[in-house]
């Protein structure tokens, strides 16, 4: 048994109100590929940010040992200096610069005060050979595909004599050939002595490549498994990833026989020219009157893209397929069309594109349906205050007055303002994208109760959620989305965390 190259002991990291990591222990042996798996929000990325110094020493408790020494990183530069490199899903390359400039960015080959470009190109060529990438080092990054860009990132890490390479979801944006290629390269690097930590949602990939696997759940280390002892299999991993009791935090509701179809989506595909890939492939689903349909899946699986494409807010997508609202085929080219057709979309990013933070509560609530308050397009401001106060009472929005700026409200109350805005539109179909993200348990319960009473009144709800317990606790039916496709449909009676996770990692 060799001593570990990386030893993270009792790491605890708290954010206001949340314990993101709770006494996590994580140990990596030299020269192995160690996979880190867990649900969204399990703490994988936070742990890697602690390791790489994004969260500096002192902002967490616990100890990091690397290469036999206790390390106290104050920033990414410190961790880079000892040979740790992290490659994020969002690549950190400069698109307008060439491959060789990117590889040596921040680590330039100097000759006196100047850069030695000839030497730079020579070394870059060597690095590219190491990652088996056959491109002209003078090509610009923006002209390469995502798969090749990823290899350039790895070449950049290798140029700094990396000892521990961390990859966060490297294959999420890659096609199968590029993925296989990348995994192959990682094996090659391992044989040359580079230790590698791989974060991945794709369990098949994990099983194919891992020497060891650590499972995180709810900010805690659940177990570390040795692949060579035959401990790692898909069911075992899924069990460890989701293995928690679903608490009774969901208000009860009888699952009634749903009514007629209000929204039908047929052979819905979308291609994004700017991303250069197919975002949605042949999606088919139906939403009936008075039901809550959950859309489960991992982050980046295409659920939000699906919702926005239905809502008419995907100007750059090329969309094929058919959309029927209450039996009639509709072309929804922009959000105003969708709103007119009776569809409302409550965003997952309420601060980014849900609320107008500098405006007050009443202005936000009435924004999407101002015409209802206007005569000849002159707004009746007294009626506006009255309506806003009605929603404030009905939704229990905690604010000193409806003339309070929404930026001063808490997350839960902001979310209630968002919901009020869309309820004021009086929609038939309500699409909720991560409706309870970042809000406290009390407000969550209120939102669940509201959802139940809305479907009781005949509304239909699509709930996109990355929280499995929420999907299971609230939905009449569940669709599972993975890589822009619907990989399965489960009635609530048959849906289990294991089944969903299996379909989601498909």
């Amino acid at each position: 048994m060799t001593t570990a190259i990386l030893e993270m002991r009792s790491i605890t990291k708290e954010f206001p109100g949340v314990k993101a990591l709770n006494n996590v222990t994580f140990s990596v042996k030299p020269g192995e590929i160690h996979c880190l798996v867990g649900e969204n929000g399990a703490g994988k990325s936070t742990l890697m940010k602690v390791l790489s110094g994004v969260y500096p020493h002192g902002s967490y408790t616990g100890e990091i040992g690397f290469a036999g020494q206790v390390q106290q990183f104050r920033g990414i530069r410190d961790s880079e200096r000892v040979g740790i490199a992290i490659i994020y899903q969002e690549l950190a390359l400069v698109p307008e610069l060439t491959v060789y400039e990117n590889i040596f960015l921040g680590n330039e080959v100097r000759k006196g005060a100047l850069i030695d470009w000839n030497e730079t190109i020579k070394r870059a060529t060597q690095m590219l050979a190491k990652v088996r990438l056959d491109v002209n080092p003078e090509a610009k990054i923006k002209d390469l595909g995502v798969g090749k860009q990823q290899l350039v990132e790895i070449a950049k890490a290798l140029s700094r004599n990396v000892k521990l390479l961390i990859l966060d979801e490297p294959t999420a944006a890659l096609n199968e050939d590029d993925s296989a290629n990348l995994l192959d390269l990682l094996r090659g690097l391992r044989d040359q002595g580079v230790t590698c930590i791989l974060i991945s949602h794709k369990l098949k990939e994990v099983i194919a490549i891992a020497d060891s696997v650590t499972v995180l759940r709810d900010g805690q280390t659940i177990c570390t498994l040795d692949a060579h002892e035959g401990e790692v299999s898909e069911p075992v991993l899924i069990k460890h990833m989701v293995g928690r009791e679903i608490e009774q935090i969901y208000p009860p509701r009888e699952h009634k026989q749903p009514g007629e179809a209000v929204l039908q989506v047929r052979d819905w595909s979308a291609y994004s020219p700017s991303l250069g890939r197919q975002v949605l492939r042949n999606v088919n689903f139906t939403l009936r009157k008075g039901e809550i349909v959950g859309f489960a899946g991992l982050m980046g699986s295409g659920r939000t893209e699906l919702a926005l494409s239905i809502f008419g807010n995907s100007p750059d997508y090329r969309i094929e397929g058919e959309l029927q609202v209450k039996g009639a085929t509709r072309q929804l080219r922009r959000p105003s069309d969708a709103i007119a057709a009776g569809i409302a979309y409550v965003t997952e990013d309420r601060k980014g594109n849900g609320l107008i933070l500098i405006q007050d509560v009443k202005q936000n609530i009435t924004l999407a349906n101002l015409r209802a308050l206007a005569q000849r397009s002159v707004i009746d401001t007294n009626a506006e205050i009255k309506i806003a106060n009605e929603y404030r009472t009905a939704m229990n929005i905690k604010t000193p007055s409806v003339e309070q700026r929404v930026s001063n409200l808490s997350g839960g109350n902001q979310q209630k303002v968002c919901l009020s805005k869309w309820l004021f539109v009086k929609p038939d179909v309500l699409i909720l994208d991560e409706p309870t993200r970042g809000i406290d348990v009390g407000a969550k319960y209120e939102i669940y109760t509201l959802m139940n009473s809305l479907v009781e009144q005949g509304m239909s709800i699509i709930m996109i959620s990355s929280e499995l317990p929420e999907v299971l606790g609230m939905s009449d039916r569940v669709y599972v989305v993975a890589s822009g496709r619907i990989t399965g449909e489960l009635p609530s009676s048959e849906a289990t965390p294991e089944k969903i996770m299996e379909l989601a990692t498909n």
Partner: protein
Amino acid sequence: MMSGKTEAQASGSFMQDLSKVLRQNIRDYGMYIALFVIMFIFAITTNGIFLSPRNLSNLLNQTGYIAVLAVGMTLVIVIRHIDLSVGFLAGFLGAVAAIALVQWGLPTLFVIPMVLGLGALAGLITAFPIAQLGIPSFVASLAGWLIYRGMLQLATEGTGTIIISDAAFNAIGNGFIPDLPLGGPLEQIHSLTLLLGIVAVGFFIYNELNSRKKKIAYGFEVLPNAIFGLKLLFISGIVGWITWVLANFNGLSWTVVVMLLVVGAYHFITTSTVLGRHIYAVGGNPEAAELSGISVKRITYIVFGSMGMLSALSGILFASRLQSATTTAGTLFELDAIAAAYVGGVSAAGGVGRVTGSIIGALVMTSLTSGMNLMGVGIAYQYIVRGVVLAAAVIFDVATRRAAR
């Protein structure tokens, strides 16, 4: 103009109420206070000449062509854009008006709507690359700046300065509204101006009382009685005083009438209509506005179209005032308008700024010029002082917004 927000109807004393209302609305009242301070200083340093009827009348007329630009620029900045082309567009369209009047012999009543229409069209053309292709407005309107400068020179190339002799057209920039043929004690006084002032004050008081009554009927919070009374008295007093001063000179000028109409219309649109709310929503968060069913493109076209139309109006006012179109008309108007908007409390981050504020901003900037001219301050120092005031206004704005958070 000075609609005060009330957080709670305090039962405290009058002074407590007053200081509270002032504190809560310091951002809105700040530039009014600044204008008063500036006028007060000049009144002293010029031994009262600054506040003489003749000077105040001149001051308002000089503000006209920048003020209408500042109104349009306010909305452009509110939706997070800028329009640099407006100065030379105003100059060019002023020349077009002059050519239409002088060389083509068209009547004023036809020329004015035609030029306004051309201005709106020019604004839509500027908006096209911005709305459709996402070109930064700085660049798109800089191109317009160059193009209209060139077109202004082309238009005036053959003839040089074009002298306008049309009396009706020239009255817009130089004339005053007619007086009522009254004798007796009102003979020395411009009685129509006085009458309009009295009607305006009456209308204002009626409106305020009415809206207060409605608010109380709905059970909403209103200003404490004493503060409300003070507000009525204060605004009526200001309007009354300005009316009195103007009535003692030549009365209301047509330029001021145009300015009041533009401000009134834009104030109404921005504060009371769906369109106005949509404009501020787009400025506050374009993504959220788009997802709420508001077309950001449409708003962009409307705002730039209105800017173009107001540029045309500015060009008409300026050409009429000079009774001619010159090769350099419009130079630096755009920067004066932008400065006026910023002094008036517009935020570059978008979504914040009032039309009325920008008018006050324009008045502040013209008052500085006028007052310093009267004092005989050199032009070099004038630029420096105006620069310092602009910087101070923006710093004050940012500081009070931080404090309000």
